[in-house]
């Protein structure tokens, strides 16, 4: 898949506070950020924005984050896009793994860890 330059990171997170700070962190590091407040918009936005990597929360109103990950990983067009799950849930890591995510970042996180994981998974 053709990679964008600079890389495009799609962030799906229902909490506006976290969404905003993650956008700031990534943009400061040189990434282009597509920020989505809920999971229902994901599929649409993937088609138009063509992200290189997706950061997604599990617990969101509307579309369940886990379901979204599963779906993306099962569809031919989207399964190659690396997905990092960011979640505060206790058993999130396992759930992320089961859903097919490529990596996991617990909340709260260190900025360094966030940036590292994004770079590693691209």
């Amino acid at each position, binding site marked *: 898949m053709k990679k964008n330059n600079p890389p495009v990171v799609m962030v799906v997170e229902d*909490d506006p*506070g*976290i969404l*905003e*700070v*993650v956008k*700031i*962190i990534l943009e*400061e590091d040189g990434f282009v950020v597509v920020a989505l407040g809920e999971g229902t918009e994901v599929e649409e936005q993937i088609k138009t924005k063509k992200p290189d990597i997706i950061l997604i929360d599990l*617990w969101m109103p509307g579309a369940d984050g886990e379901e979204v990950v599963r779906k993306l990983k099962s569809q031919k067009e989207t399964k190659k896009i690396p997905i990092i799950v960011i979640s*505060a*849930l*206790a058993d999130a890591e396992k759930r992320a793994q089961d859903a097919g995510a490529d990596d996991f970042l617990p*909340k*709260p*996180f*260190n*900025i*360094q860890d966030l940036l590292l994981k994004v770079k590693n998974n691209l």
Partner: protein
Amino acid sequence: MTLGKGRDLSFKKNLDRLKGGKELYYSFIRNFHGIAFYGDMHFSPLLFDGAVRKITGYSKREFFEKRLTWDQIIHPEDRPRIYQEAQKIKTVPHYSAEREYRIIQKTGKICWVREFLRNICNETGTPILVSGVMYDITRRKSVEEERERLLKQLEGEKRWAEQLVVEAEERAGELDAVFSALSDTLVVYDKEGTAVSANPATIKLFGFNPVGMNLQLLSQKLTTRHRHGDPIKVDDLPAVQALRGKTVSSKYFFLKNAAGEEIMALGSASPIFRRGKVVGSVATLHDVSESWQAEKRKDDFVAISGHELKTPITTLKAYLQILQSRFAKIDDEEANRYLLKMSTQIDRLTNLVKDLLDVTKVGAGKLELNKEFFDFDSLVDEAIEDFQRIAPSFKFIKRGRIGKKVFADKDRLSQVLANLLSNAVRYSLKPDRVIITLSQNKGSLGVSVKDFGVGISEENRGKIFERFFRVGGALGKKFSGLGLGLYISSEIIKKHNGEMEVKSREGQGSTFSFRIPIIKKEKNNEKK
């Protein structure tokens, strides 16, 4: 019998005169088992024949030679009444008597006799002699006495039995009341496992009357399941185990009543013994659905709260780190210091939230370990490094090493180490040493963390691993926290099949140690 006037009272002669009577008499007397006698009014025997020696122990000759009078051998207790009657015999003409009394034989043995006698009067009607027979009735008497004794005993036992019946009825009445009033279910099963009686609470909970059904059918009808959801094998039901003589207490399980409602119950059962054999069992169920649901709600609440709390913390931490990097660039020392303090507090907050979440997991039995092979020594080194940075004035000393890879939950053990090290620092009044010792012994590894801080009093030492336990008093206020750390740590160690313990002296310091079995590195990586 009156005698002729003026005749010589020679009785033997008189008897002899009886034609052919002598032989008859003697043959009779030889076979007579009693005593035939003639005597005077003062108990002197004048004529005496029959089983004299047999009954009295004395021979006839002895009687006469020793001049024994009959009253001398009468039992002292019976003498008064014999004497009393003797008055009548002496005075009342043609008096006859039939009585029983005891005599004391020559050997001292007591013999009961039954005596028939009558007085013989002279021509003026004055009694002058007695004549009679007596028999040994000792055996009969003893039988009679025995019978009396038995009757009395029987009477006593009858009263006692009546008393028991009264008590049993009262007891039965009490049990009946308990049976009916009990809010827990109570079912009695016979030894085949068929319900023979059930109290009202059972019918209410089940939604039907189980009497007549056997345990197999009942467990199907009630869809009995274990706490974790698997169906319970009939053999595992407390009531069935009780039929094998085992007493089962407090086993949790789920069941569905007739209305299809899910109920969580705490069950117990006991065998019923009769003469050492099991003849049935009694089983009870205590409905804990409410408390279980309440616990579930609480667990859900805590899980959600945890998630909700972590969200703003995430944002705070992220902005803080952005600021830290900005201020580090402009080298504002004071600002950096303040930001570091903020960072510490946020980490502390994060840990508190994590502890809360862990505690609910542990409480629900849901603490899962993710085991992997890792270098334990490195883990310990890392932990010490972290703490040396956080508490630079303390001296962390490491002794010993494990030297091999360990199969365990790396993150959780790291959590335990962090907990112990942080306690060591926290509960020291001034910066001091903290000695971490690693050891190996018989297939398990041991870690101990020794501090020279305030120590733990004897009364608190036993409670230190309890959930929510915090040291009280002035010391408690000084050291904050939720009191969850050691509880969680000890549960983590337990989950690893290990043990955790503490040795401490108040005012001198504490040594917390744990040991966990090391699983040898094997080719199969099954998660335990």
